[in-house]
């Protein structure tokens, strides 16, 4: 792969230059830097696009893969995320201003979920921020373009460099993830606490190990140079064999986010940066599914409180969107808040089995399993009144339930509230499906589990 990295960089640059172009002619297919290793276990030979990359859709089958983070662990690929390295004397001050999080005690080796707002207090970008040094940070997210744009608009003595094609990002998540990584690294990770990272050596290769928790379980990320991605993927896969590790395909990749109550940019909301010069280039324009009909594109924007992130807002420092956040808190918080929905199993079964029933009743829109790989927003009703929007519907084999996230009016954000989800885009044979409001996360939060004793 070493001699392929230039090709990989060039492909990334071409893709970025024309993200909406036609495949092959204008826009090269860009695969994970680990595609060779992944394709060794791709009997279904299906690839699907995630952000700027094509990933293996399914390695074995989706129920096994969607269960892996609950029962054993998975090896998944997020190399397609944007990675931006921010350096310089003002790097810390800039990031502190750009995000609502308190970075005053953000030590080297720490990780934060960095939430960046626009002037109106809508989420413009969010991702994982790590501090590598006094003046060095990396932001890993769906897109780094908002950060790059805002930095260029100010007078900061700092520099941001897009290193996306240079680095792979693998996730190893689930209760047995620590065993896999310790076996592969030949070193203990017992002292690495949640939201901390550190450099490590994998067969002599310099990598970073991050303890993160997008699965809601004990879990890690491995970041390293893209040219070593195939070797590292094989190494982790082999090390994981005795631990029941499964390779995670795109088909099941986002089920865990819904179980753990984590909203995803481009799936559960669109960032307000989408209409600015800081808009993400990585996402191909496609359709948005579901029954919700927006009155304007801005109906897909969300405030931090509507995504469960209000607690990250720290008013003791100056940041972009602070005035809006203060006004919102003074008003008693965002009008809607993020909750879970458990869909009625009988009503779901009605949709799934509709094509098996005789008759000429029009068929409802199909319900893809475990979920649709794209944004869908469904209208949620109480007493016939629209009270919120559901997103990210996913069949969770761990919970044995169809679940989703819902941004719902605050007064109805009560566990047990009965609602109706309107199923199917306007113009299709829509169905009204019953659902019940649930707490988030759906499963107990085990991200911070103490591993020092074991």
């Amino acid at each position: 792969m070493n001699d392929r990295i230039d090709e990989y960089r060039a492909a990334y640059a071409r893709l970025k230059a024309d993200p909406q172009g036609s495949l092959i002619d204008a826009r090269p297919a860009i695969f994970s830097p680990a595609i060779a290793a992944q394709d060794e276990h791709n009997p279904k030979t299906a690839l699907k696009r995630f952000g700027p990359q094509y990933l293996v859709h399914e390695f074995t089958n989706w129920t096994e893969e969607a269960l892996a983070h609950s029962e054993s662990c998975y090896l998944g690929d997020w190399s397609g995320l944007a990675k931006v390295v921010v350096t310089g004397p003002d790097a810390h001050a800039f990031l502190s201003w750009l995000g609502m999080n308190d970075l005053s005690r953000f030590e080297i080796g720490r990780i934060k979920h960095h939430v960046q707002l626009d002037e109106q207090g809508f989420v413009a970008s969010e991702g994982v921020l790590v501090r590598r040094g006094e003046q060095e940070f990396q932001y890993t997210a769906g897109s780094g373009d908002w950060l790059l744009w805002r930095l260029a608009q100010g007078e900061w003595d700092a520099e941001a460099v897009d290193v996306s094609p240079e680095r792979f990002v693998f996730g190893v998540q689930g209760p047995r993830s620590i065993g896999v990584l310790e076996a592969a690294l030949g070193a203990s990770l017992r002292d690495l606490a949640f939201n901390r990272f550190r450099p490590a050596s994998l067969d002599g290769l310099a990598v970073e190990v991050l303890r993160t928790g997008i699965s809601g379980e004990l879990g890690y990320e491995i970041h390293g140079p893209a040219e070593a991605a195939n070797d590292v993927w094989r190494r982790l896969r082999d090390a994981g064999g005795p631990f029941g590790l499964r390779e995670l395909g795109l088909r099941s990749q986002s089920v865990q986010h819904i179980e753990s109550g984590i909203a995803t940019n481009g799936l559960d909301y669109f960032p307000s940066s989408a209409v600015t010069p800081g808009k993400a280039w990585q996402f191909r324009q496609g359709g948005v599914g579901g029954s919700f009909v927006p009155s304007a594109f801005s109906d897909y924007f969300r405030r931090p409180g509507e995504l469960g992130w209000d607690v990250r807002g720290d008013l003791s420092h100056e940041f972009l969107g602070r005035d809006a956040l203060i006004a919102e808190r003074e008003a008693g918080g965002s009008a809607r808040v993020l909750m879970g929905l458990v869909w009625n199993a009988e009503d779901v079964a009605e949709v799934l089995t509709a094509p098996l029933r005789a008759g000429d009743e029009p068929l409802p829109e199909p319900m893809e399993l475990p979920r649709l790989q794209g944004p869908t927003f469904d209208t949620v009703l109480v007493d016939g009144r629209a009270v919120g929007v559901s997103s990210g519907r996913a069949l969770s084999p761990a919970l044995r339930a169809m679940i989703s996230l819902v941004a719902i009016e605050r007064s109805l954000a009560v566990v047990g509230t009965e609602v109706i989800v309107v199923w199917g885009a306007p113009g299709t044979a829509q169905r009204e499906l019953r659902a019940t409001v649930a707490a988030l996360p759906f499963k107990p939060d085990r991200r911070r589990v103490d591993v020092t004793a074991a």
Partner: protein
Amino acid sequence: MAWEFVSLEQGIEQAGSPVRLLWKPGAPAWKPPIVADEYAGWAEEQAAWRETVALSDLSYHMSDAFIEGPDATRLLSETSANNLVKFELGQAKQFVPVANDGNLITDGILTKTGEQSYVLSGVEAAQHWVEYHAKAGKYDVQISIDPTRDFTPGDPKLFRLQVQGPRALDVVAKAFGGPIPETKFFHSTPVTLGGATFRALRHGMAGQAGYEFIGDYADHDRVKEALLAAGAEYGIVHVGALAYSTNGVESGWVPSPTPAIYTDPGLEGLRRSTNLYSYEGQKPLYGSHFSEDIADYYLSPWELGYGRSISFDHEFIGRDALHASKETVRKTKVTLEFDATDVARVLGDSGYLNTYPRDRIEVGGRLVGFTQQVSRIAPLGKVLALSLVDRDSAAPGTQVEVAWGEHPGPGTSADAHLEFPRIRATVQPAPYNEFARTAYRAD
């Protein structure tokens, strides 16, 4: 259900002023969404519509307002300077709405589609203007707006395909098995192709005869394929987003004037009903010509040369101010030809160039106007700037200088010495293509 609505007025209040909201140095130049940047290459595509024939797909970058109802004609007449009395079905007019101060809201293409129905296409600001007055004045109309595909997902309602260039009529005759029934310029006729029925509008781009075909988007692919297939033997070139963006510079059409809606206290209602995340709330302003007062960027329809679309035989918003300003407006639309040596020094002597800066135009260091769009036109080997200059600096041949750079915005005075490189330029008329054709013919 409407989600949360943040208005343009709230955005202005938050930012402190309209200019503070909109001034965004370094913003990338707008370009049409969805269509590929280039098909044959931007330079070759620019050549196609003047030398052979070009197909442009305009289906995605314009907003369409569908306006229908017993009061539709009265509404459009009272919110624009256009005379709508003589308006045939299928005809299109350049729509010229003005604010109370007589300045332009933004123009658009207004098509009459029925006795009580119209489609207004183009930049959404003019459509929001009409929609606002429809509600405020309780007109009996229905308006639905189908936005651009800049970020709205899914297919648009209408397709819009242009065939332009010296061989355009050959391609059209080939596609339809004979010439389309003769119609006047900007009039349309129904046509059928491959089972799809749609309208053919007589049109011209960059001064070349051609047609614009408009129909149900469901028929987009087959109509486009049929036109491309018919054009193959004439060497039809599909125009990409890069080349398409540059055609207005030659045809003298200012694509994105600053709507005159930000300062009038009487338009607070409009600003409160306009979404902040819209053209009016987001369209970046940038360049070397900075002013804290957004009204300095407003343009009069007189300055833009829209006089022929203006009629005073009806009552409309802004009528008196527009009437009074006919003789008093200071600026006029011109095209600047950049000096080749200075272009090579400052901008490089080749490569794609298209941007929409408000750049200072000076004579002897004195500000005489500002640019609207700057493009490199490869077949001419020139960089042109569609601009507004004071009338006394508008004579063809006048030598000016353009300050090329990005003023950082609020906090730095408008006339701060920022050491922007100067590009010498020669004033020529706008539209440039008409001038160029006659001038070259005279040569």
